[in-house]
């Protein structure tokens, strides 16, 4: 112990590099974590926190009997499920098809272009979507031009379209970027495997299925675990940009509900109770998805 103290003093320079980082974490991560206890109190900004009265599970009972809370759960699960069921495969398919392009130059160019929208802010991209989906916007012009619609539809203001709008706009913006990790995994596959398969007479689709997919399976598994664990999350930047008073019925995700209740209506303890419950469920989901993946495919994060 004393030896350790002595080394500690001797390494004061190294220690003085690390300790500010630890202090930063204590302030910006651990204090908010500790402050989750206001979920069990009637906290008001006027009083010091620990003087607020404890109220037990009052806020938890309050939000579980709030219809708007269940609506936000429905919206979150709806949007996440579409994203998980359809959106998860699209980057994989894109990576597989891009891999079939033989001209290296063309491949690189497509790849570079496909990343670009990832770096454009949601304010911009969302603004474009709002314009396209408006009454005289591009989507209406296109659909009416093709004769699929006979009059303008206000897509963005119709709750029933909102989930699909988030899905399509997210796909348009993020597919190329999400594919990078698969493209990298595919690039790491030993070419000898393909040559052997070709000699054995495997056609393109068989090679894709039996070699490419099998080799990138661990990557797919890890991303799938993370996607399942994140099912209660939503793309806040996107939803915050696309929501309006007309579509809020299907736009208010759990994140947005927490924001609206906590920061707009000022019900700090109430929203923190929702936050608290959500982080517990998210953690359980992460462990469950990890366990399931380990059992089914042998691949897991931990």
């Amino acid at each position, binding site marked *: 112990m004393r030896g350790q103290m002595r080394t*500690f003093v001797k*390494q004061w*320079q*190294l*220690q003085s*590099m*690390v300790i*500010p*980082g*630890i202090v*930063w*974490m*204590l302030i*910006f*991560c651990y*204090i*908010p*974590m*500790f*402050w*989750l206890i*206001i979920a069990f109190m009637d906290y008001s*900004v006027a009083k010091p926190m620990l003087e607020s009265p404890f109220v037990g599970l009052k806020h938890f009972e309050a939000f579980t009997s709030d219809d708007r809370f269940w609506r936000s759960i429905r919206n979150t699960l709806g949007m996440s499920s579409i994203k998980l069921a359809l959106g998860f495969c699209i980057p994989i398919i894109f990576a597989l*098809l*891009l891999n*079939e*392009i*033989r001209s290296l130059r063309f491949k690189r160019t*497509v790849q570079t*272009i*496909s990343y670009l*929208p990832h*770096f*454009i*802010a949601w*304010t911009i*991209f*969302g*603004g*474009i979507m*709002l*314009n396209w989906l408006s009454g*005289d916007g591009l989507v209406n012009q296109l659909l009416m031009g093709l004769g699929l619609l006979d009059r303008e539809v206000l897509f963005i203001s119709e709750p029933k379209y909102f989930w699909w709008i988030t899905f399509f706009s997210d796909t*348009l913006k993020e597919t*190329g970027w999400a594919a*990078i*990790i698969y493209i*990298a995994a595919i690039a790491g596959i030993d070419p000898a495997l393909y040559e052997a398969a070709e000699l054995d007479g495997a056609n393109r689709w068989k090679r894709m299925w039996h070699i490419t997919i099998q080799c990138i399976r661990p990557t797919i598994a890890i991303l799938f675990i993370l996607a399942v664990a994140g099912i209660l999350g939503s793309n*806040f930047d996107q939803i*915050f*940009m696309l929501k309006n008073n007309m579509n809020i019925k299907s736009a208010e995700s759990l994140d947005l509900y*927490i*924001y609206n209740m906590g*920061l707009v209506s000022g019900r700090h303890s109430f*929203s*923190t109770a929702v*936050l608290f419950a*959500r*982080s517990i469920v998210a*953690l359980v989901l992460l462990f469950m998805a990890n366990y399931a993946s380990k059992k089914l495919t042998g691949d897991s994060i931990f």
Partner: protein
Amino acid sequence: MTKYKKVRRIGGFEIGNAALMLIVCFLTLYPMWFVLVNSLNAPEQAFLGTVDWFPKVISLDSYRVVLGDDSIMNAFYITVLRTVFGTAGHVLFTAIVAYGLSKTYLVGRKVYMKIALITMLFSGGLIPTFLLMVKLGFYDNFLVFIIPALYSFFNMVIFISFFRTIPDSLEESAKVDGASDYGVLFRIVLPNSMAVLATIGLFSAVYHWNDYYQGVIYIRNPDLVPLQTMLYKIIAENSMSLMQQQAMAQFGARLPSDSIKFASMMVATLPILLVYPFIQRYLVKGVMIGAIKG
């Protein structure tokens, strides 16, 4: 022996696939092209309500309004400031912490790493963080853009694994010559880590440039609003600054509000579009490092 080159057939699949990739490129580029065309649209053009591939008459009126608007220019300035200081701060702070933690002989290293890891599993979330910022006096304060974004676990892990690849002999010879730990870090380690510094710096810069959420939550003072937050207000909440309203009145109905929106979008994106071709390889490299280690 004759030179033998494997000839592959170009079939329907190849053509279809190439066409599909071209469609992907088109879908990717079209949104930005759309913004550009509409921001350049001459006022008379916009009346027709038609979307064209090219502006028929190019007009810079909308840009004149945007660039002449004090509140937009101030927001631009705030964004530049936060990008410069936020990025420099993040890269330096995270790299210094990472350097200390990359030394296995550091006393307490295991405890430090545990403290860092737990922050990945649990977090306080929106409301407690908001209350903390208010308590710290960061509400309506420029520092809210900089200090909370100083550190990131993932980037620290990337730094640590990169620092470990630098040969020990380099550091040791500097130590023999009497250099301190800080001397080694700033004179030997960081100059040899330019690639990873650039990558993490770029990601941080893109984050600072594009973020609008911090400004929405923490900033009320109009002089501190960053560009993206202002754009959010112009686009999603349809609010125009006084200057813009005056400009609109001056142009009468000749200038559609949409082209002002598009011109401000273009002004906010142009810096990213201009540097993108030069930096994209670093950005991709960054994801690869992160993917392998993470």
